[in-house]
């Protein structure tokens, strides 16, 4: 499946929810089931600071694809992290660099990515794109 296919899949999952509590209950479930990040990556150097909730992000490059693992101290933030990783992890640097993550708006979670929410998510996406650019520069020299 392409990155866009997964976005479409997520959008149709969210279309099933009748009200906001269902949506947030689902995010909470996603947050709870996000595979745990290796404890050694839950350190200062992997920390993306938000004013309110914090996100830890680790990236590795293998066979042309970037794998991300992440965690957050807030469960709703973690649920959104899980969605972002479902879309972005295991993708090539170019796919990541060119993604616009439009699905976030379509599932009604755009407000969580506003810099004013200070939950670490905006900076997390920035950091993911930076990793993609760095890995591209390092491994994909033309």
């Amino acid at each position: 499946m392409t990155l866009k296919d997964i976005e479409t899949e997520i959008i149709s999952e969210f279309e099933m929810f009748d009200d906001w509590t269902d949506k947030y209950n689902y995010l909470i479930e996603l947050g709870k089931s996000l595979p745990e990040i290796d404890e050694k990556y839950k350190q200062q150097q992997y920390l993306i600071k938000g004013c309110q909730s914090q996100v830890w992000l680790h990236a590795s490059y293998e066979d042309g694809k970037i794998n991300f693992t992440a965690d957050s101290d807030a469960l709703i933030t973690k649920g959104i992290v899980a969605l972002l990783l479902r879309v972005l992890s295991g993708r090539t640097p170019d796919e990541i660099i060119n993604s616009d993550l439009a699905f976030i708006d379509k599932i009604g979670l755009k407000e969580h990515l506003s810099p004013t929410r200070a939950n670490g998510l905006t900076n997390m996406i920035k950091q993911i794109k930076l990793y993609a650019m760095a890995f591209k520069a390092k491994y994909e020299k033309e």
Partner: protein
Amino acid sequence: MNFDIQQLRKQFPALHQQVNKKPFVYFDNAATTQKPKIVIDRLNDYYNNENCNIHRGDYHLSRKATEAYENTRKAVQTFINAQHHHEVIFTRGTTEAINLVASSFSKEFINKGDQVLISAMEHHSNIVPWQLACKERGAELKVIPINQKGEIIMDEYYKMLNDKTRIVAVAHVSNSLGTINPVKQIIEAAHEKDIPVLLDGAQAMPHIKVDVTELNCDFYCFSGHKMYGPMGVGVLYGKEEWLEQMPPYQGGGEMISEVTFAKTTFNELPFKFEAGTPNVADVLGLEKAMSFISSLGYKNIQKHEKELLEYTKKKIKNIDKIKLIGTANNKTAVFSFLFEDIHPYDTGVILDNLGIAVRTGHHCTQPLMDYFQIPGTVRASMAVYNTTEEVDKFIEGLKTVRKMFG
């Protein structure tokens, strides 16, 4: 109660809106209060009919605006019972007022090896200016400890006052905890050693009658926007004897007496500390905010808010795994709390979806959060227009949070 709460709420246009299709419950009053219509109208009226620069134009409108501006200074003097109207300096807010004192007072009175005392519950606005001043003057910032209830440990405070202490700067009311500090005792003890005291009154003014003469404080700082007035205006009250001795804080127009390229002589109080074109509209708005408070009376405000405090205290206790941070015996209607197992951000997001506005995070008091070893809290802070029905909605909201997070 001597006022009709529904009538009172009608004076606040912003309260009557839907948020996420639910009636808006505003419990972030410690961050800023909503504005009554008389304040909003005053701003409109000023810009529609009276706008011009003051203190310099010798024409009708300028004279009128100057008079209104200076009358507000007198109104503030009366409101806080200062001895002289020139002891009232208009600033942008509490933060600027504290910065003014920290910067200017320290240049004259703080030297290498001296000490400045603050408390462990201070807002960053009453920490950072003093850190900067201490760094510049080679002085030391000392922190008065607090207990687990969020109260200043007075015995420790008394011990910390010594011949190196140059000033004590503490909050009248804590923004994160709602603790009302025993400022009278704090001031008396400091004065026994001739040490001046600055009070950060940002969180006190909307709730408590402040009488600077009775308190005998040396400096008192507050913001208009936390007491139903406009943003961008605040007050520094300072005793004449201190203000006279302090050098100007900023240079510019208005604060001068005579300027040549070689030398400037400064204007007298209060103008010495009001450089540049003042914020006339918001100062006039502040006058209306004080009128609003006076029309209700602090006694009635306190009575109503005490009811909200006691009512919420009783209700919040019954919620599972909730921990209150700040349980001082003497406090305002501020509830800082945490669910033991739920991040404050998560709680805030769910309450927001229910149309309830609370603050989550460290509330600009990171050292205080470190003391309690927590990342932050959820804070519900109430004002005179809040109702027990809103408290019920808030409590229901907390139950929803509890249910959603298991």
